[in-house]
């Protein structure tokens, strides 16, 4: 036991571990804030779709030898997010089909481009890290940490500023529009913020596992809590705790960062499901 504690103390002195924790916690926080809305809007898979878009954009950035691929990846992902959320109601191709189309399409094209243009000798390794997250979270530079901090603060700020509007628009878009709330504008803001979070989260867990990061904390919280505020706060805490725990475990045990975090999220989901089951049964017995 003391051995592990010693190891902790030792690791914590490395700046790269500190950076990884800061960035990991911030990303977990941002993604959990949006998770509740995405799950409730029946857009669970939008995270998946957008992350594949980001993957495709990253492949193009790599082929073009861009030094800072953020500059390409972020705008492309934002545009796709807006398109996907806009098609929501009255499109010819329904929401889930549109997401599946874009998601699989960009994945294939991204891999194709990587294959044709990549000069790297370890192509399979490159693809694997982009898809499942890499140890790159442990090799963050100061610039990347700051970029992440600034974007996270922006996301959190927007969420706090528009919290009640996001609730109303998610709960009943027609009512909001009918009574003079600009639902379209808030949906647009939501789309942009989602895209930012996805691009951020790709660093942490990789393109394939983002949905888990976004959805599991929200679903866990919804098992137990019944008000929007409680669910939001709870999913935030769950997400941050799971991300921190997953990161630490992966550092100590040497497991892949992304999948370890998601595994902890899944464990959290089971614990909350049990808790929810027990509390609802208890309530029923009391009448």
């Amino acid at each position, binding site marked *: 036991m003391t051995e592990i504690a010693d190891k902790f103390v030792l690791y914590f002195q490395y700046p790269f571990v500190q950076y990884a924790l800061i960035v990991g916690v911030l990303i977990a926080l941002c993604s959990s804030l949006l998770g509740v809305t995405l799950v409730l809007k029946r857009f669970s898979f939008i995270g998946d779709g957008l992350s594949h878009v980001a993957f495709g954009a990253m492949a193009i950035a790599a082929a073009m030898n861009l030094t800072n691929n953020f500059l390409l990846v972020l705008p492309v992902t934002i545009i796709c997010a807006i398109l996907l959320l806009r098609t929501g109601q009255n499109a010819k191709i329904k929401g889930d089909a549109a997401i599946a189309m874009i998601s699989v399409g960009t994945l294939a094209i991204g891999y194709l481009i990587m294959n044709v243009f990549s000069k790297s000798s370890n192509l399979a390794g490159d693809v694997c890290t982009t898809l499942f997250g890499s140890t790159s979270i442990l090799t963050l530079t100061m610039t990347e940490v700051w970029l992440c901090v600034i974007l996270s603060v922006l996301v959190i700020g927007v969420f*706090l500023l528009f*919290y009640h509007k996001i*609730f109303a628009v998610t*709960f*009943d878009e027609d*009512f909001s529009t009918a*009574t003079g709330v600009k639902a379209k504008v808030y949906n647009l803001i939501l789309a942009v913020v989602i895209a930012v979070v996805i691009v951020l989260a790709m660093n942490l867990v990789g393109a394939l596992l983002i949905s888990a990061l976004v959805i599991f904390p929200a679903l866990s919280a919804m098992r137990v809590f*019944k*008000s929007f505020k409680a669910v939001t706060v709870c999913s935030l805490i769950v997400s941050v705790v799971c991300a921190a725990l997953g990161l630490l475990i992966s550092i100590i045990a040497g497991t892949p960062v992304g999948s370890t975090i998601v595994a902890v999220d899944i464990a959290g989901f089971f614990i909350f499901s049990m808790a929810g089951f027990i509390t609802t049964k208890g309530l029923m017995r009391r009448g």
Partner: protein
Amino acid sequence: MPQLTCQNLTLGYEGKTVVSDLSFVVNTGDYLCIVGENGSGKSTLMRAILKLKTPTSGQIVPSDGLTPNDIGYLPQQTVIQKDFPASVREVVRSGCLNRCGLRPMYNRAEKQMAEDNMQKLGVAPLARRCYRELSGGQQQRILLARALCAAQKILLLDEPVAGLDPKATADMYELIAKLNKDGITIIMISHDVAASVKFASHILHIGRQSALFVGTKEDYLKSDAGRVYAGAGGEK
């Protein structure tokens, strides 16, 4: 005084006309019931009044100082609300949002208004409960309280008693009648012609493609359409 004027309104979906050439006036303080068969375009008409749908032709003109911020709406229940984690208080307060502008939080007056409206509709004791776990009748009252937070001048109700038991239905009708007495204009969609005739001051009967009848309740009962649909039950 006229509050809403519909002029030669035609509504449809992708070329298919649902309502054609409809004209009517709603005056301040009216209680207008829109009746008609399923699929005759009642909800579509209401969505047009709410500007959720653009008319194919014709127009809806507000007057008497009516703005979107004065309109409250009780929608037909949508699927998304069924598993939404929201407390009753959160739902009712969200009705105040159209007054907030860019302000991120509700102010004290708005919070008080939400409490008052919950009191008025008898759902104040449920304030902390989860919306989705309540009965249909309670949910409708909560949505009505939210609609009242959004507006004091005019309320649009789309089948407010659908799925309620007889007791809850009767309560709901009483409540709406009381709100109307307090000076709120009511526009209500209903299947229940007998109840509509009992409470409403005006009736709009939509048939396939065109209005069968627009006018006061008294005239409606004398009309052909009224005699067929209201039958003996309406003439109390």
